[in-house]
């Protein structure tokens, strides 16, 4: 009876109660925790201006402007050599982050485009754009027009893997 009444009182919109939760709750700050110690009251903060992540990540110097785009398009080259290129992994990342709009084969016919949620996604072999490794990287890093930046979803090495995979798709489309 007690059990039944307790169960019937339990509401799914609030968490269950805990027994002596001293060891349940963290002493340190948890991710996304609310706290007065930080500006805005949230633990999640942007890294300080100009900070560089550990590892051999280099800051991306080219600016988010038309001139920067042209500069990247003309000069920027992939730092990965042929042994470092991991096409299956690049393909997996591409399918997760790009394929939903650009399509698995890069023709611009991803699921969201077919369902007419997002329109006007160009094919990678579009002559007017004539994308290069540098322009692809610049676009992933900063976004372009309606496309957003993917700099926070992919790290530097992953971005270059995806660039390589996109170039491969482009070559396949141009065949």
């Amino acid at each position: 009876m007690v059990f039944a009444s307790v169960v019937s009182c339990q509401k799914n919109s609030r968490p269950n109660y805990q027994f002596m939760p001293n060891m349940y709750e963290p002493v340190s700050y948890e991710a996304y925790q609310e706290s007065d110690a930080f500006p805005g009251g949230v633990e999640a903060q942007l890294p300080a201006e100009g900070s560089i992540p550990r590892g051999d990540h280099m800051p991306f110097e080219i600016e988010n402007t038309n001139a920067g785009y042209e500069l990247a398009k003309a000069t920027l080259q992939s730092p990965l050599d042929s042994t470092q290129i991991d096409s299956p992994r690049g393909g997996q990342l591409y399918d997760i982050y790009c394929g939903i709009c650009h399509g698995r084969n890069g023709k611009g016919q991803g699921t969201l485009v077919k369902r007419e949620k997002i329109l006007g996604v160009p094919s990678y072999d579009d002559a007017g754009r004539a994308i290069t490794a540098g322009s692809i990287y610049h676009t992933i890093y900063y976004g372009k027009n309606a496309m957003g930046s993917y700099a926070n979803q992919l790290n530097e090495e992953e971005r270059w893997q995806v660039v390589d995979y996109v170039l491969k798709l482009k070559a396949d489309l141009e065949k």
Partner: protein
Amino acid sequence: MIQVIYRQLASKIPYLGLVILLTFTTSLTAQEGDPAKGKTLYNTNCAACHQLDRKMTGPALRNVEARLAEEQGLDREWLNKWIRNSAGLIKSGDAYANQIYNEYNQVAMTAFPQLSDQDISDILAYTAEPKAEPAPTPGPDTGGTGGQVEGGISNKLILGALAILFALLAIALVLVRQTLNRFAEEKGVEIAAQDKGLPIWKAFVKNQFLVLVSVIFLMLASAYFVYGYLSQIGVDQGYEPVQPIHYSHRIHAGENGIDCKYCHSSARVSKHSGIPSLNICMNCHKSIYQVAEETQQMGIDEYGVDYNAEIQKLYKAVGWDEDEQQYTGETQPVKWVRIHNLPDFAYFNHSQHVSVAGVQCQTCHGPVEEMEVMYQHAPLTMGWCINCHRETNVKVEDNAYYTKIHEQLSKKYGVDKLTAAQMGGLECGKCHY
């Protein structure tokens, strides 16, 4: 004299007709574009930056040709040049080209040299189509809801009728009994009085064996319930809080098939599967400012949610000015309610499970792609963790990291495939330290 005037007029009529005919035919050839073809071309080439009735990356394009001709005196020739090579037109010093370029923050329009004159006519014909009137509220829909209400009423009616029927039956039985008793009285029939034995509880107390058995049974039953009650303390299975923005996993992950890791990208590389920051929402919702009409209707009918209002909540939180198509910089954090939460003394790492083991998100989080409101699918208890570690084989194919240890351990255990438990997945220190 009068006759002469008439003659002159009459001689002019064919000319006039010719002029009218010519203007008509020229205007016909100018608008000869096929709007249906134009729509396809527009959707593939233009829609990334232009919408028909709304400013986006570029200006709205409804009736662009007519508007340009009226307001700026620019003809098709100018449009052709602009579409094929806008940068060239800007460089050539064209006044309006420069004006529009600066007005839109100097975002260069992609050149479309591949579009033929016919293609451009098609596209312009599509943009010249009048705006489609919003469809009147569909009749069958209201009919449908009416039918449902009727169904409810008829169910209630049937239940009510049944209740009345049973009541009548009961009354009838009572009446029959009364009349029978009256008959018996009149005929002088004695109804045999029942033999009054011991009350049942006294009989029960006298039977000591029965008492013992039932006490044991009661104790076992209560122990069972108390145990069940105690072991669900702190377990939040089924926890389904109301979130500040109603986010439907059913629509995003289910219908649109967006990969979990698109938004929860840190699940691949970090301990946490992060809550996506709002810029990730804006990757798509910059363009998707309202949901499809049928989706909106379904949201209101089935879930009582106005999806479009939820998108507006997102815009408010991220500080997106829809009319100007730019960020205002006034943001406010969204206070999402955390659902899955392990106690602090248990260590769990998402990347270990997602990237190394290749476990599907749904294994622990359940059918998220069907959840309109997110809830906790698994109990997240230690027994649940351990059970999975005992049953799951470690994925060692194509993983050089595991080759050596797998060889050694599979020899030791004499098995072909190791489970996570045999690889040390049950050691206390793996999760508690």
